[in-house]
């Protein structure tokens, strides 16, 4: 089996309504799997369920074909890394924040420091290592978050809009650094985004989520060439319009 992580029959409810209802989501080894959808579609909820951070009301997660039992959750989490929608730091320095996860996973201090420094450098953030993590700017924080995730050398990487709220200059170079890192490591990745361009450029497969339900799944090209619902068509048209506008302005 080539599937690294798989969710089956996942259902998340709040008191009043269904937030997520996904029959199946599976990530194959080494692929970049994108999830797109409008605000409130349930993307972050899906990510938390898949990353074993939130227990769904119904459904199971399978890691390499094995059902993840409650007692296995911590062990399997240690094979994964998550970059959240907003960068989250403990009240400590950048370096401490990066090495913390490694130390939790039993890596010794010296090796943890080496890995932290290596990945900070790859994300051009080595100058930040002694800064207080919570004092970083948005762009700096995103770089550090990415370095922290890669330093864990995970088998599966979860990313929740890691490039939102970045200015264009930083965005371009950070995205380049990021996909370069993904390519060289071959980490299986679940990647949430609003940006169809990122999907077209980097994803192997894409899933569209709307109102908690899967609207379409396939290759990025299939998606833009043959959107299955009117809503999706409008979503793509809106994106094309903004893209055209941007090109026009340039």
């Amino acid at each position, binding site marked *: 089996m080539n599937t690294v992580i798989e969710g089956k029959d996942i259902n998340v409810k709040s008191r009043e309504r269904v937030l997520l209802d996904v029959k199946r989501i599976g990530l194959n080894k080494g692929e970049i799997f994108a999830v797109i959808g409008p605000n409130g579609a349930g993307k972050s909820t899906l990510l938390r369920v898949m*990353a074993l951070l939130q227990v769904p009301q119904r459904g199971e997660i399978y890691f390499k074909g094995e059902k993840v039992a409650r007692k296995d959750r*911590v062990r399997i*989490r240690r094979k994964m890394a998550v970059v*959240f929608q907003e960068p989250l730091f403990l009240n400590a320095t950048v370096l401490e924040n990066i090495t913390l*996860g490694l130390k*939790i*996973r039993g890596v010794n201090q010296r090796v943890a420091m080496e890995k932290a420094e290596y990945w900070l450098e790859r994300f051009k953030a080595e100058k930040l290592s002694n*800064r207080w993590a919570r*004092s970083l700017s948005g762009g700096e924080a995103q770089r550090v978050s990415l370095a922290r995730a890669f330093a864990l050398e995970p088998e599966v990487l979860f990313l929740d809009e890691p490039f939102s709220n970045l200015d264009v200059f930083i965005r371009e170079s950070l995205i380049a650094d990021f996909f370069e890192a993904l390519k060289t490591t071959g980490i299986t990745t679940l990647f949430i985004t609003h940006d169809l361009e990122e999907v077209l450029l980097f994803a192997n497969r894409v899933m569209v989520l709307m109102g908690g339900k899967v609207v379409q799944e396939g290759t990025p090209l299939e998606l833009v060439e043959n959107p299955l619902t009117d809503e999706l068509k409008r979503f793509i048209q809106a994106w094309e319009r903004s893209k055209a506008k941007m090109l026009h302005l340039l």
Partner: protein
Amino acid sequence: MDTIVEGVKKAVLMLVTLDADIYRITLFTLKVSGIATLISLAISLPVAFFIALKDFPGKKILISLANLGMGLPPTVVGLWVCLLLWRSGPLGRLRLIYTPTAIVIAQTVIATPVIMALVTAALQQVDKKLRWHIMALGATPLQMLFLMVREARYSILAAVIAGFGAVISEVGASMMVGGNIAGYTRVLTTAIVLETSKGNFEDALALSFILLLMAYLGTLALTYLQQRRHKDEYGN
């Protein structure tokens, strides 16, 4: 007026010459209240961690009980612990009444609700998203507790100082369960009561200065911690 001036003079003299009795009572008080505070913290941490992280029926009631317990009158606690430890009471066989242990027990009962309520609030203030992050790093429940305590360290220290402040200044319970026995169960507050009733104002004043000094040191520590926290969170 003369009494006060004379009293202050003598009190200061006793303090600077380290009067043996006063010295001993002070150390004993610090020890008893310190141990009671530490036991309360040890009880409070796991309970507060559980309350802060889990949803269970009766959670709100438990929190409100701890909040109510913050205002528990020490005399009432003294009475209950007395009844428990009394020679013919349920725990009478342990022969604990009028011992330092009895004071530690009573003070633990007084400090625990204070520390538990404040530590719960401190842990609840740790961002839920940060908890997801710690979980995602692969933390075990124990590592999670440790990291959350570290995250809320200043608020938790404030809780400890508040609990310690409550028991060191308490008189009713210590008097009732300890019996104010000289050289054995006498603490600062019960000593002040006794010296005042005997008319030894200078002794009472000297003791009161020490108590005030401790209260001031507690406040000073709190202020310092608040400043530290502010500095930590908004740059270095």
